[in-house]
């Protein structure tokens, strides 16, 4: 099923639509949080420059990161694909005899389909971010990168908990949260592996930074014997200074918070003087299509810090939700990342899933020109002959006519007359050949005058 078909189903899903109506709350809170900053636009420019600098010499910063992380006792591994991520984690589990993994939020583990792979290898994965926990219980992928269950109503979740937890039905969010906490507590205490994502890798200290609100990230990175942090290679930034600049924007852009409840810096395994922390720490730095973007016309996408502001401000996302986008990342971010990572031929609809309204680009904290990137993907589709012939052909014919003004004047004069013959008494056209997509849900206003502007202007000039 393609985006269009999934979108149609999503538009008809009343529960999903109720959930999505809350998305603009994120946008409102972001606007308030950004106003706290002295120079928000200047900060966005600075953040983009930091990300560009990191990407420009990504190999150097990754090497620095590896050296510093290794010096502090961590092991840095590399995975080229999602499958390699899963096999590295399984290998770590075998080496240390690990049986249960608690996980904090990681979109990369979704890219790698890690939970299924772990389960198949006899390791029980337990999502501990509340939203991700609900997704896992429901066996559904997240539909928003920071609000994974925005597609579910409170009643859906009450019903799900009753069924999965075997306890009485709850109706209040606070009660449900408390019940999930109780359920998760036992897992936190019994797990021997903690798997986290990483919001940033800091090259100069070899640390992974985690930005969370629930505190589960802290438990995942400190309680179990082994911690594995899985991040994309592009998440590296050179310095703590860079990180602190980006942190002024990330929580504000994501949830409208000045700062998230928790900001964790995990650096190496437990040291001799530490009271807690893992005995072993691993980093898995993942490519999974990212290096293909380096040096190309999509490189700006690698700046992305996964805040989700683009989807929170996207009227298309707000209409159809995240699952319609079909892969890990939804919204404008996903409409670029999915074709860029899995191939433009495997996501034909996504570059078209935008009106180019530009709301996403106007809020992106690292100034990714998302509509421009989507347009480049459309260009790629045209170059590779992936658009329907009638569309390509129609544009060429129209373009050729527009370059021949006399012919164009004649064609438009005839077009105006033809369209006016189709109009009703109110000047509206109810159906136009080859444009049923337009007329299904709206009329086409007929040309208001029987003559084109050019004809009226010529007549005026003659007077």
């Amino acid at each position, binding site marked *: 099923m393609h985006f269009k078909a999934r979108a149609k189903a999503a538009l008809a899903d009343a529960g999903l639509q109720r959930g999505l109506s809350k998305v603009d709350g994120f946008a409102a809170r972001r606007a308030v949080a950004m106003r706290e900053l002295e120079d928000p636009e200047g900060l966005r420019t600075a953040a983009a420059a930091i990300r560009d600098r990191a990407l420009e010499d990504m190999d150097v910063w990754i090497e620095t990161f590896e050296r510093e992380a290794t010096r502090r006792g961590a092991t840095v591994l590399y995975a080229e694909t999602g499958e390699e991520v899963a096999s590295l984690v399984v290998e770590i589990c075998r080496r240390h005899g690990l049986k249960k993994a608690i996980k904090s939020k990681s979109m990369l583990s979704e890219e790698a389909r890690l939970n299924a792979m772990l389960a198949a290898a006899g390791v029980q994965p337990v999502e501990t971010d509340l939203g991700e926990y609900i997704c896992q219980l429901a066996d559904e992928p997240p539909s928003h990168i920071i609000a994974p269950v925005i597609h579910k109503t409170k009643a859906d979740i009450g019903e799900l908990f009753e069924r999965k937890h075997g306890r009485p039905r709850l109706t209040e969010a606070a009660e449900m949260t408390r019940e999930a906490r109780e359920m998760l507590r036992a897992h936190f205490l019994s797990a021997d592996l903690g798997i986290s994502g990483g919001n940033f890798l800091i090259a100069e200290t070899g640390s992974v930074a985690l930005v969370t609100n629930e505190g589960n990230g802290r438990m995942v990175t400190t309680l179990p014997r082994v911690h594995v942090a899985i991040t994309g290679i592009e998440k590296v930034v050179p310095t703590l200074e860079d990180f602190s600049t980006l942190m002024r924007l990330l929580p504000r852009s994501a949830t409208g918070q000045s700062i998230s409840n928790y900001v964790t810096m995990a650096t190496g395994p437990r040291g001799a003087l530490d009271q807690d922390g893992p005995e072993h720490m691993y980093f898995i730095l993942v490519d999974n299509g990212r290096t293909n973007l380096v040096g190309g016309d999509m490189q700006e996408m690698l700046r992305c810090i996964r805040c989700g502001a683009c989807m929170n401000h996207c009227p298309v996302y707000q209409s159809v939700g995240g699952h319609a986008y079909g892969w890990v990342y939804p919204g404008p971010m996903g409409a670029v990342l999915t074709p860029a990572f899995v191939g433009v031929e495997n996501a034909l609809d996504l570059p078209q899933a935008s009106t180019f309204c530009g709301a996403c680009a106007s809020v992106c904290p690292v100034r990714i020109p998302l509509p421009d990137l989507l347009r480049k993907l459309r260009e790629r589709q045209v170059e590779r002959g992936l658009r329907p012939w009638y569309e390509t052909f129609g544009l060429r014919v129209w373009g050729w006519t527009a370059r021949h003004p006399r012919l164009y004047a004649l064609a438009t004069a005839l077009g105006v007359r033809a369209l006016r013959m189709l109009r009703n008494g109110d000047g509206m056209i109810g159906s136009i050949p080859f444009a049923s997509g337009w007329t299904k849900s709206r009329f086409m206003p007929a040309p208001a005058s029987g003559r*084109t502007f050019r004809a009226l202007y010529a007549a005026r000039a003659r007077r």
Partner: protein
Amino acid sequence: MRVGLFVTCLVDMMRPSIGMAALELLEGAGCEVVVPATQTCCGQPAYNSGDRVTARSLAEKVLEEFEGCDYVVAPSGSCAGMIRAHYPDLFGDSPGLAARIARLGAKTYELTDFLANVVKIERVPGKFEGKVTYHDSCSGLREMGVKAQPRALLALVPGLALEEMRDSETCCGFGGTFAVKMEDISARMVEDKCRNIGASGARAVVLGDLGCMLNIEGRLRKRGDTRTQVLHVAEVLAGKDGRRSD
């Protein structure tokens, strides 16, 4: 001051009164207005559909037609945005043309931006009795910075009161071919827009781009609203009713 009026292909065909209104407003402001007879389209439909070759050939045509003017003005934020914000992207590999394109872009204005900020008009011929609401078209707003200008000009119209709608900056769902390719999502977006227009209690929605205009008017009428007028800002300022132009 020689001002080239870029009428735009949709105004030419669908609502010529807007072109006439723009012409009168510019002449009223003391501009010498030239309307190159060979003009057709800026090439945006091709550009946004991924056909750079067609887009570039039309951009070169616009360049030749308008580069002799002191200013280029279009009654559309979208077409003006194409010339100023996007043409440069089409000429990255030809420095000579790129410099000319950059100069063209720098003197290209959306109509209300030009009237408010360049010629700074203080009076308009239009009159309007009642409340209107303003829809911010995406390209005008985000590519050309058109937000305060139309509102400032509408404030000059005797009898007119502006009532802001909810989410006036949210896209109406037109998006060129998007409206046909992604018809269900587009329908939902324009429905939301129409509901917000209705809730504003305005007699008319005023806007600055033809795409939004056709989309919003088509949806309003389809849902049975024959009362709310859909007017281009140039028509209101010039005192022209778009449905009685000849």
